């Protein structure tokens, strides 16, 4: 049974963020008091400033920054919006309330800070992420989409009303939604030895039914397609705090391969953020080479599948190992296979045969 070190990580993070917000607030307060026009320095998110860092194996922002000044009349409005969002984030974290992107858009209207549309407010949220170098979840703005987790993991809530309350994530067979309360909970203990992330809800349910958690001592995570940030944050914490290896199972196509890659090394869209990646995560299937090996029923790749293959082959992260090799095989066979394809050989074929192979293989990857 793995136990977490005593230090409470999530509370720690919150206090640094609060400090950072206060620091920015104080700076701006002083500027105004002295009659100076305050400004923010925001790391530039333009394409030319996004570079791949081989050391930490993810996209990061380069050294370019843009100054947003309240003296410039064309920036004054967005400066005020950013200022408001910092103020709003401070309230959210201070009062331990959570919010969504859409919520933020409507909340602004109570303060005479008008956003044209949600796209504009979403953009300002990314600005604040860049200024604070923290994902929006850290200041309690969560995405709408939910994914799930199941397995022997005891957590302790930190959200108001549930503080100190503990839950084991194997108590409910449908799994637990990965929402704000779960993401901010303390991870107490687990008997699991591996985290299995699967792309599809259907397979997640199959795994629970077949007791994969017990048979393989695993925590099962449903990413619901491309993994949301909260899910990626949880995966990272499971890996970092509980030292669990993470393996990823996706459909056998180019999109599946990229879902695995984003969990491993993030996306260019989130280049301004660190702490969302699990560089040691392993993609174990379904590979292109598995299609032949396991004689899986296939469907032909579409034009856009093929184009995506060529695009990814130019990405620095796909220049070596299985990442490159599998893309090339996909391009060669021009066919793809879904996780459900294993059902051709019986509903439990995937958990009985394929999964054990792959978990074994993962140790050597």
């Amino acid at each position, binding site marked *: 049974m793995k136990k977490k070190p005593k230090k409470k990580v999530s509370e720690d993070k919150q206090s640094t963020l609060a400090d950072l*917000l*206060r620091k*920015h*607030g*104080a700076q*701006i*307060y*002083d500027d*105004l*008091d002295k*009659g100076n*026009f*305050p400004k923010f320095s925001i790391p530039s998110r333009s394409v030319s400033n996004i570079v791949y860092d081989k050391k930490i194996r993810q996209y990061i922002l380069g050294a370019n920054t*843009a*100054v947003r*000044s*309240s*003296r*410039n*009349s064309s*920036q*004054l*409005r967005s*400066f*005020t919006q950013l*200022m*408001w969002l*910092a*103020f709003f984030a*401070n*309230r959210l974290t201070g009062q331990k309330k959570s919010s969504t992107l859409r919520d933020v858009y409507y909340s602004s209207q109570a*303060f*005479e*800070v008008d956003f044209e549309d949600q796209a504009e407010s979403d953009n300002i949220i990314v600005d604040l992420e860049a200024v604070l170098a923290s994902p929006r979840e850290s200041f309690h703005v969560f995405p709408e989409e939910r994914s799930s987790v199941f397995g022997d993991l005891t957590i302790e809530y930190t959200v108001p009303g549930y503080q100190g309350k503990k839950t084991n994530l194997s108590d409910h067979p449908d799994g637990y939604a990965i929402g704000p309360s779960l993401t901010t909970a303390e991870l107490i203990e687990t008997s699991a030895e591996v985290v299995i992330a699967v792309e599809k809800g259907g397979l997640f349910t199959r795994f629970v039914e077949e007791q994969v958690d017990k048979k393989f001592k695993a925590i099962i995570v449903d990413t619901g397609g491309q993994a949301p940030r909260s899910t990626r944050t949880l995966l990272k914490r499971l890996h970092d705090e509980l030292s669990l290896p993470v393996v990823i199972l996706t459909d056998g196509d180019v999109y599946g391969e990229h879902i695995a890659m984003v969990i491993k090394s993030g996306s260019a869209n989130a280049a301004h953020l660190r702490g969302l990646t699990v560089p040691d995560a392993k993609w174990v299937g379904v590979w292109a080479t598995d299609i032949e090996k396991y004689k899986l029923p296939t469907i032909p790749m579409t034009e856009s599948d093929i184009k995506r293959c060529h695009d990814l082959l130019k990405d620095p992260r796909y220049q070596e190992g299985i990442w490159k090799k599998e893309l090339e095989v996909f391009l060669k066979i021009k066919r793809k296979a879904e996780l459900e394809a294993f059902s051709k050989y019986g509903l439990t074929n995937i958990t009985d045969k394929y999964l054990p192979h792959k978990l074994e293989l993962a140790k050597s990857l």
Partner: protein
Amino acid sequence: MSSKETFTQISPSEFFYRNRDLAGFSNPTRSLYTAVREFIENSLDACDQKGILPDVHMSIKAVDAEKPDPKQYILSVRDNGPGIESKQVPLAFGTVLYGSKFGLKQARGMFGLGATMAILYGQITTNKPLIVKSSTDGKIQDEYEMLLDIQKNKPVILKHETKEVAKAGLSLSIRLEGDYSKAGSKIRDYVYQTSLITPYATITFDDPKGDRYRYTKVVRTMPPSPTIIRPHPHGIDVETIRRMLLDTHYQIPAVDDNMILKVRKELGLANKNLSYSEIMDKTQKKWKALTRPVRTVMALMSFLKMDFEKLSKTTIEEIDIGNKKLTYWDFGESQSVSVDMDPESFYYKQLASTVQGETLTSFLTKRFQRVGPTTALKFAEFAKFKPEHRIGTMTNQELVKLTDALQSFDDFMAPDPSCLAPLGESPLEKGMERFFEPDFLAVVQRGASAYSGFPFIIEMGIAYGGKISSRGINVYRFANRIPLLYDEGSDVVLKVVNDTDWSRYKVKGEPPLVIVSHICSTRIPYKTVGKENVADRPEIERELKLALLSLSRKLSSFMSKRGQAEAAIKRKNLYSKYIPLIAQFCTELAGKKKEPNYKKMITEEPIVEEKT
């Protein structure tokens, strides 16, 4: 069908009666508008010519207000112009093609034909007479009621009386079929725009509904009146040359009783019967005082060697200068007789000169504007004619060659613009000021230029903002002080305006912008008979572009000053809105109680922007 066709001559009024569509009298709507136009233009032209500040009053009244359109209206136009001599009135308004507007100078219309057409139209549709009241001296007024005999092209006077009045001027009143409900807006536009381009005139219009539109004069100076000038060689065609030749050309005089009377009078021989030699002696002495036709008759007599008695019984058939033969018909003998002419004789030279016409160089210098002897000689060389070539002897082919050369010779001076009557910058500016009360106004008059030998001058004004309520660029087009109201689509002025990239002049969106364009020329190159749009001659287009360019630049600098002022206010509003919000948010964020002291930041001026 009969193989035989008969050709009959028709009178001009008959011709126009049959082709009234051409003159703008195709339907009741259009006819009412055209009649208004013709009458007002006639009045304004009459005043212009005499340097009188025009005061024109027009009224349109329905004969029976209850009836639906189209119906009969009474159109009356009264002016304070010079009036028309009593005895001229029947001819001026009772015949077609009688007018005083011949000659080359700028006038609103040509030939005064349109007004007569309106009268003709009125008579055709209502069979009611025209009423003319005219006073030239401001004391006695002649009042005529008359009809036009279309087939004979002659006036029929129904009533003529005189009475005492206090003011000179002319008043015309006709009854005609019209449609005011359809033509009304067009007529009001016409009156409005005419006032805009004639700021020295007072124009009043009482419409059939009892509404009065009155535009009083805003300037008291009239543009200098144009002078009548000779044509420019570039503007000439073969037909014009032929007419000019006819004008100067010798015609074999008819030696009838009238002519003989004239000759006797000039020689001072009223009733005396002198012999041939006595007559010729007298001729020698009086030669210099004789008129041209008399000189010609005397030269002929010198070869015929006849006295008046005998002369009256002959008719000259041919004067053959080349073969020195003179042929006449003798009524008494009923035969043709030829006599030789002595080339050495004084009279032969006179006759030769008359018959053959002027030399080419003398024709050019005397008959055309701005052609001196040097240019005439250079032209003769260019056209490959001898300078002393007599134009009277030119064949048709040679005339065509001469015309072509006149049009293509580049060394003629530019046409003389003194025949033009532009409005002038100051009156145009005042006119526009009165109508638009704009925030910005600029006008320009370009120098004279020419196309195909016709001089022209462009005047243009541009107005922005103020009381201009229309959105988008509104163009008022004028040609020789006539508003061009319709068919604007293909007009050269519109083309130039639309080709302009207005954003370069800081004019965006749907600006409250008015452009007034006035083209003055002895001949406006209209595209259609309707005379509503001007063709895009490159020379005219170029001048329009230059005029618009100079005005747009002025507008641009106005707009940028205005833009800066507006931006400063806008900026100040922005800071006043957002800085307090920033203060509010950062106070809570910094954990302070009291807001920072930011007030001075939004009250102090100016805020120097920081651009990144």
